[in-house]
């Protein structure tokens, strides 16, 4: 099971995701409320996996993903997305995202994606 950093600008989504991941036996090592904080937390915590919201204030998810990948090319980042954001997610995949989960989150799908990305 993995050590996971959750990045989302709302506490609501972070809590939701935290509980899903926790129920799957994962360890939530940290949370960040925007892209800038995400990079700092990533460097500090070196998590096995990051769940990254796409739309966030200041530094958005794509920029944060790029910055994290620049700092650690082996970083495993899963994008948290919603219907209508396909183009953004494609950009993220091209920038090195390893997976994606779609809001509203379905716990089994989230856990499956996390497991697959962690084991890859």
């Amino acid at each position, binding site marked *: 099971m993995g050590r996971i950093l959750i990045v989302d*600008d*709302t*506490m*609501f*989504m972070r*809590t*939701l995701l935290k*509980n899903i991941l*926790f129920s799957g036996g994962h360890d939530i090592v940290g949370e960040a*409320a*925007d*892209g*800038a*904080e995400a*990079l*700092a937390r990533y460097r500090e915590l070196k998590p096995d996996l990051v769940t990254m919201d796409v*739309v*966030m*204030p*200041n*530094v958005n998810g794509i*920029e*944060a993903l*790029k*910055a994290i*990948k*620049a*700092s650690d*090319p082996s970083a495993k980042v899963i994008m948290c*997305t*919603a*219907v*209508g954001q*396909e*183009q*953004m*997610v*494609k*950009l993220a*995949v*091209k*920038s*090195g*995202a*390893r*997976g*994606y989960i*779609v*809001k*509203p*989150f379905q716990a089994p*799908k989230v856990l*499956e*994606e996390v497991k*697959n990305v962690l*084991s*890859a």
Partner: protein
Amino acid sequence: MFDEEGYRKLFVEESRENHENIVNNLLALESGEDQQTAIDEIFRSAHTLKGMSASMGFDAMEHLCHSMEDVFSLIRNGQREVTASLTDLLLTCTDTIEGMLDAIEAGGNPSDEQSGSLVQELRAFTEEESRDEPEASYEAAPPEPAGEGDCRPAYTLTVAIDPSSTMKDIRAMLLLQNLQEIGTILSTTPSQELLEDGKFDGPFEILIESGAGEDALRTVASGTEISLLDLSASQSPPAVSPGMNEEDRTPEQNLEPQTAVPSAQVQRVTKSEKSREIKNIRVDIQRLDRMMNLVEDLVINRGRLELIAKKHGIKEFDEALSMVGRSVSDLQNLMMGIRMMPLERIFNRLPRVVRDVANHDGKEVEFTIEGGETELDRSMMDGLSDPLLHIIRNAVNHGIETPEIRKTCGKPPKGSLRMTARRDKDNVIIEIEDDGAGIDPEKLRKKAVSKGLMTPEAAASAAKDDLVSLLFEPGFSTADTITDISGRGVGLDVVKKTIASLKGTIKVETEVGRGTKFELVLPPTMAIIDVMMVHINGMRCAIPVGNVVEVAQTKMEAIHRIGNSEAILLRDQTLPLHRLEDMFGRAEKSDTLVVLQNDGRRCCITVDTVDGQQEVVVKPLSRIAGNCRGISGITIPGDGDVVPVLDVNTMV
């Protein structure tokens, strides 16, 4: 672990923040401030609201926010202009969202009933616009150089993507990308381009050359929502021009130098963001109230301990207790501080009101707010909201003139409405000032007579201040007609009553042709006040010090009976005298007088003794006790007694 209720609370709380953000930025957009930031913020908040409501299963709200997000997506891309009618539509949407949040907070799940037509309208907006728009495109990966043809075995994979997958194009893209990491994709059927655009139905084939072995390929090709239907060694020789090769896969090479975030910059932002995170935590208001109650209990029990220590004269105990006392006092002050909230919380709603009323009346108003950071006890916030709303509505509706009239008066066409809040030594002062028509005392004079509030003679000789104070009399309105904006059956008399219930006062100054200014003076908190402790018929009672004018000794002979009541002549002033017998019973020898005042009116009561002054925590009467005329609350001093606090307002 979080339960349903916990999620709901958090959802409502964060949704309200986002809702407010949308409203404020819509207004900012209209006023022509930094457009791009406002548009980005609205888009972001609508998107966040959509995601959160979808997660909670609040479909109606999700649909509405989704439609708003779509509209702003177009605006952001410059495909749509923000017009006044669009702003109106969007503001109506925010009103609906607010209503939905109220319903959700109350435990419901709003239906599409209210929002359905709005969604239609928003959709009409986006569809009309997007007809001839090219699809937003993302940057395609640059053409990949040809790989070196080595002699790794080739395989054909037949793969299917789960039909329930929400974004099968991205799933395909991820699969291809993951396969690239362990090999070189030679070709796909249909083409890689079609796969990445989601233009495929059913299974597809991938021809890959890889030295990683079948097992590795199986693992990668059986990811989320992907099933590997077939894997076979391929006889075909490596193709000449592979799509991509694995050396290209290091992600940092995919980074455009100009779009990659320079890490130094990120670090700097991080610092300030981090400190924000640490500085603020969310606490449930009810928890805070419970904590406050506990602190109050602690204060009361400290007082009891002090009495015990005094009685037994134990020096060591006394010293320890004084240390405890100091900590308790600090704790109490701290808790009071935590209960304080910046006035912004209610001020933020007002620009919207000004806009609506001004639009409705065809007026132009520049509304400025200063001192929103001034703090007030949380418990007073709710009560203050309506009076402010009323005054602001009045100012735009009745105060500020239409641009045409203003021009003929030599004023700028745009009226100014200023709201300022500040803290002086003991009070919070809120001023609302407009540069409108002011209130005509002659009109007031006529109205006073026609309403029978004054005789024609009295009205003729009445001073301006007396006339203006009539505004606060029930049923007195200066507007010639009652409008649907200001005249909602609530007058300034209700405003005054509400402010008085918050222990505040309201004053108005007006100058014909120059404008009107309302001044609200409020205590920053109602929970802790200075009181004078007195004994009446052997029972203790507390009087707020702010209401006490003086304490005097008097002879019974100075008391005169006027009809059914008593009065006393004190320093050439006749003051009504109350003995509070119905509350405390008749006292034998109450010859100490306490002169009380509220809002300029005075009276006096008789007491046995005056015990002194002290700071106390006032608790409201419990709901079981109900409303008790003459008593505004109770306090529990050190000895554990329950002492009523007099409500002087009802006596004078």
